């Protein structure tokens, strides 16, 4: 089981879109995939037509169980989506209170590591969606992942958010046996705008090695897919953004597994 975290300490850069689209692509290739929504805003949860304000079982239960010293059962929080091979652990709005409840408790950054260990034989990939704010949830996602994907909108403010993210990663790395490998993914690239072009150049100059060589273009089809509640990779397979995410997935799979591919039958 491979665990990827999708995170950037700025909102609106395409985190949830990246999680949903990569998740859809992985599922369509036959990989059993679990999406975990760790953002109390619950965008990923809402994407799949669940209400984070009224969710019965969610990721919150994992943290609550640890705080209550009861048994953590991640299976109880998993919801099957309508897409074959794609499941989700939804978010609950109550997760926004976790930092105040658990931010001072030792070991609360390792809840997801331990919970996901229960699933090591059941899923091929786990994708974690994170809040943009540094806190218990983001720390959990960073502690659990084997690779970090950092979507960065190609505009100046987002590049600034990336710097903040890099500082956080540096600090988390001090507590890890191995530093987190990461890939920066330029998103919402609009070749007609100077801001996109200059921001991309700035990213290339500063983060060349870790920067994905391609870009995810701005694409209204992604928004339409969100409205339908279906991954764009499934309902808009020929859109430009989906093609870009396919390229991204290819690069990630080859980076990790070389020729070991599990194709859909």
């Amino acid at each position, binding site marked *: 089981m491979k665990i990827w975290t999708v995170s950037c300490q700025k909102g609106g850069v395409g985190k949830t879109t990246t999680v949903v689209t990569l998740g859809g692509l992985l599922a369509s290739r036959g990989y059993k995939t679990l999406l975990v929504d760790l953002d109390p805003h619950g965008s990923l949860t809402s994407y799949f037509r669940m209400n984070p304000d009224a969710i019965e079982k969610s990721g919150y239960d994992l943290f609550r169980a*640890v*705080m*209550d*010293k009861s048994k953590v059962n991640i299976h109880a929080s998993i919801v099957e989506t309508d897409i074959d091979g794609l499941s989700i652990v939804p978010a609950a709005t109550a997760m926004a*209170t976790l930092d*105040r*409840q*658990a*931010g*001072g*408790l*030792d*070991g*609360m*950054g*390792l809840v997801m590591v331990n919970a996901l260990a229960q699933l090591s034989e059941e899923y091929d990939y786990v994708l974690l969606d994170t809040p943009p704010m*540094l806190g*218990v949830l983001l*720390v959990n996602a960073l*502690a659990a992942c084997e690779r970090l994907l950092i979507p960065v909108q190609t505009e100046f403010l987002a590049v600034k958010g990336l*710097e903040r993210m*890099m*500082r*956080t990663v*540096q*600090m*988390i790395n*001090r*507590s890890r046996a191995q530093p987190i490998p990461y890939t920066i993914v330029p998103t919402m690239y609009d070749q007609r705008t100077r801001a996109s072009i200059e921001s991309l150049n700035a990213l290339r*100059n*500063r*983060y*060349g*090695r*870790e920067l994905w060589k391609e870009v995810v273009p701005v694409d209204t089809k992604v928004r339409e897919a969100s409205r339908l509640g279906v991954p764009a990779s499934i309902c808009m397979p020929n859109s430009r953004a989906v093609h870009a995410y396919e390229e991204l997935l290819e690069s990630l799979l080859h980076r990790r597994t070389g020729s070991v591919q599990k194709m859909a039958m």
Partner: protein
Amino acid sequence: MVSEVKPTKEQSREDEALDLYLTALLAGNSPDSACQEPEQILSLHTNNLEQPETGRSSTFDKPAADVRKTGSSLPAENPDPEMDQQQTRQSESRSSELKLLTLKVGGLTLTTPLSALCGAISYPGTISTLPEQPDWFLGLFQHNGAKIAIADMGKLVNHGRQNYTRSLSLQPYSTVLLLKGGKWAVTCDEIGEVIRPLNDEIRWREQREKIPWLLGTVISPPAALIDMRSLIPI
């Protein structure tokens, strides 16, 4: 190519706070391991704990009879109720058993939810100071094998009062309160009694943007009701 981001001098203080936070979160210990049983923590105050609870007196003449009960009175279903005013109010309205510890610091009379505390110990003899810290951050001290950060509550609650000064060599604190979580402690001059105010004896502040740690006011005995965790500005 530059993939490493070096923090600026201005960021170093923030980094230290974040380091402390992240180290705790990623520690392999069980969540409550840092929070000792109050019975152990309060052992240094044994002489203060022998008298029975005295009810809802407003005086500080008698020591904290009920503090010994801190651990046993922690509501299991709500490990941190003081953090959220609404949560606290709900809890209070449900059970009418909101327990507040009264204390004095820097000339002020305060109360704070008992459930936020691990216990109280004497002011530590040795505190390791750290460079370039805010004046309210007194340093770190060892307690039961753990390093605990200690904050000057007098400075924090009197922040903004220009005439507030205190020399710790001339006016040392006598006591520190250990906060739940086991990473922080705050100084105080005197701990008082545990009170159980009724609903209409607390005036809750609805807007807390400017002073987030001030939850409201207890009418009888008159005291500010404070949220310890919000008090520490990290």
